[in-house]
């Protein structure tokens, strides 16, 4: 069970995938997409861990551990990923508001035909 953090991140992705496939409400679909993004970000950060390491910052770092720092590149990539996830969620939610205003319902199976 040494890879437990990776398995937990994949469990989050699987839960988000289940929500996207089997739920009908539009807001629940947005929550599912957000769950998938959260699982991927957790997986990225867990990739760069070194056992008994400290944060990669030299301000007030304890001198005994200063040569055993966690890898900084996956953290930089996770920053970009979080901001892009936020942009996607904002656009999805604004589309959900406009769909509800136009059709009167949030059920995905009823918003199928194109109105004028």
């Amino acid at each position, binding site marked *: 069970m040494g890879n437990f953090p990776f398995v937990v991140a994949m469990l989050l992705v699987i839960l988000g995938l289940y929500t996207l496939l089997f739920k009908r409400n539009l807001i629940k679909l947005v929550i599912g997409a957000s769950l998938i993004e959260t699982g991927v970000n957790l997986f990225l950060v867990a990739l760069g861990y070194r056992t008994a390491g400290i944060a990669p910052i030299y*301000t007030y770092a304890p*001198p005994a551990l*200063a040569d055993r720092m966690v890898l900084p590149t996956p953290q930089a990539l996770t*920053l970009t990923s979080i901001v892009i996830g936020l942009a996607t969620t*904002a656009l999805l939610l604004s589309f959900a508001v406009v769909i509800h205003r136009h059709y009167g319902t949030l059920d995905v199976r009823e918003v199928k035909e194109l109105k004028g």
Partner: protein
Amino acid sequence: MRGEMSVIVRTIARITYALILVFGFYVILHGHLTPGGGFQGGAVVASGFALLPVAFGAAAAKRYLNPSLMRHLEEVGSLAFLALGFVGIGISFFYNVLANSGSLFGAAVPFGPNSGILNSAGTLPFMNWAVGLKVMTGLMTIVLVLLVGAGKEGKD
């Protein structure tokens, strides 16, 4: 007024709004020394701003912070970030010419743990401030537009 919450919520929102703003600006300003930077500090300040429409109603918040001013400030932040990439254009795009140079923000940093020299890291603090302004005003624009636009009834 429509959408306003009770007296307790409004009083606590006024106090914590000031504290959250101070903490968010601290995280943006010291991005090259402590954990944080432009994106994280901008998100903290936008969360502090987002207290206002929730506690006081969308109409009052729109009178206090003009949405078109927020949009223009976001454009200024984007253009400043792009212009800072051209500072070191003699060598390449995004080159850090001010680091280790002895002028503004140019102090040299020795290797190893230290207690944080504010005057270091070249063009990095300017980039932090530009990105912090952009993220802060952009997220506040999204909050205001969603709250005001979703409150209107359907037009058709």
